[in-house]
């Protein structure tokens, strides 16, 4: 059954060494939970960006919590490059597993289906394939001289995202952002922050049911209004581009990053 907890208690469920899956910037990023995670400071996280990372990932990198980063890209979008990511790559601050978007999806879907791998077209000839010895190229057993890449299952310990609402049973409205469901299916535990909690069941009406991640997959929910800020939440509010820009500017140095984060934590407290 789904637990309803504070954002701090939610963050406490992400332990040292956890493989943590996080969504792309427009899918519903649990930004408020980022501060709670940084406050608890789990060590040696393995981040899986689904399929790319942004502000949240850059903050976790800057806070030094990340041992491994598996992603197809990290960027602040319009605000430019992700400063802690760029600095960390240069300084070898973490192990890097460069991927490509459909490979991340394929790995999660393999886990969703409980199979060891999924085949994926494309990729051959990319240096990613040589840099990812965990990917294998085999000859398609249904073809002849037809090399194809196999992507191993990605099985996160935990995934974390932000959504508009949950109901009291623990069902979560994810709308058409179905990669959030894929993350939850693939992960051992799913943590969700939401704008609001409603009393009636999201599954009661077939209209809303279609966009629901069932409680079966949801371990804990924390209510955090405006919890994706400064990112947008689809159907709810727009991104705060200026705040993202302020971060991009501040985090150009590690000191600037730390000052920014301290101010952010103070504001949240």
């Amino acid at each position: 059954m789904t637990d309803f907890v504070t954002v701090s208690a939610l963050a406490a469920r992400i332990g040292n060494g956890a493989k943590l899956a996080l969504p792309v910037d427009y899918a519903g990023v649990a930004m408020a939970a980022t501060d709670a995670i940084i406050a608890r400071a789990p060590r040696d996280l393995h981040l899986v960006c689904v399929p790319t990372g942004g502000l949240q990932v850059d903050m976790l990198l800057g806070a030094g919590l990340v041992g491994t980063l598996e992603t197809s890209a990290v960027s602040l979008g319009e605000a430019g490059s992700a400063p802690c990511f760029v600095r960390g790559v240069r300084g070898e601050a973490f192990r890097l597993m460069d991927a490509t978007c459909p490979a991340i999806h394929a790995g999660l879907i393999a886990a969703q289906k409980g199979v060891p791998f999924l085949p994926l077209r494309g990729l051959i000839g990319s240096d990613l394939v040589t840099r990812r010895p965990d990917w294998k190229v085999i000859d398609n057993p249904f073809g002849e001289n037809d090399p194809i890449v196999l992507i191993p299952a990605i099985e996160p310990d935990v995934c974390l995202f932000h959504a508009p609402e949950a109901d009291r049973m623990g069902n979560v409205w994810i709308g058409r952002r179905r990669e959030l469901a894929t993350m939850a299916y693939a992960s051992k535990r799913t943590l969700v922050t939401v704008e609001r909690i409603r009393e009636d069941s999201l599954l009661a009406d077939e209209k809303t049911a279609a966009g629901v991640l069932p409680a079966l997959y949801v371990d804990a929910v924390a209510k955090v209004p405006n919890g994706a800020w400064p990112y947008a939440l689809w159907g709810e509010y727009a991104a705060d581009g200026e705040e993202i820009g302020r971060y991009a500017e501040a985090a150009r140095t590690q000191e600037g990053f730390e000052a920014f984060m301290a101010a952010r934590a103070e504001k949240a407290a």
Partner: protein
Amino acid sequence: MSVATPPVTHNERLIFTVARLLEGVRHVAVGASSPIPAAGAMLLRALEEERGGAAVRLSILGSVEHNFFTNGGVELFDCAAQGRIDAFFLGGGQIDGQGNVNLVGVGGYPTSKVRWPGSFGSAYLYHLVPRVILFREEHTPRVMVEKVEFVSAPGVTPPEVYRRGGPKALLTGRGLFSFDAERGGFRLESVHEGHEVAEIEEMTGFAFERPETVPFTPDPDPATLALLRGRVRDELAETYPGFAARMAAEISKAA
């Protein structure tokens, strides 16, 4: 009372060129922060509607309004594999003469002196989307290199590799190249007004073919230009308000 039409701006020329490159496509996908490719697709859509031609679909990734996908982030990639996406755009921190693109970085790997965001979906879409247009405004020896330092996505692959897509053209701020998949190399098709072949040769780190006389990149005719400055800019403003405003300002300045 006659008002002289302000001349075609650089961005308008690029947009029109994109529309020409997309001719015949039914479904174009563009990245979230790619206003010129999106505008080119919108222009083609408007032109086809006026001509009574085939409908053109445009998917803008990451947009809520211009996104008719309902199966999450994987749908674009599935859709491409199903052959339902005809054209896509790729940039690149480095692009080389074999059509390889590098979106990862330079100065070593995994430790890179200059690190870019990463490969995104390039390693996949480059193989599966029939018409990939390389678009990079900056055309300098730093970007247009002989050999990329990291192949995010290869321009050509051995014949046994399943591939039904790849680079068709490279559009830069200086000119337009076509790509010959057979030979695995570029050919300069046109230079934009205000630029010269010698300049392009100097600014390009890779060898390329060229006709004896390289024409200028064509400009839109007045009707097309009017469509671009009217309907297309209005549509563009919904998703890229900043860019649409800049386009309008450029025209006023030119007038």
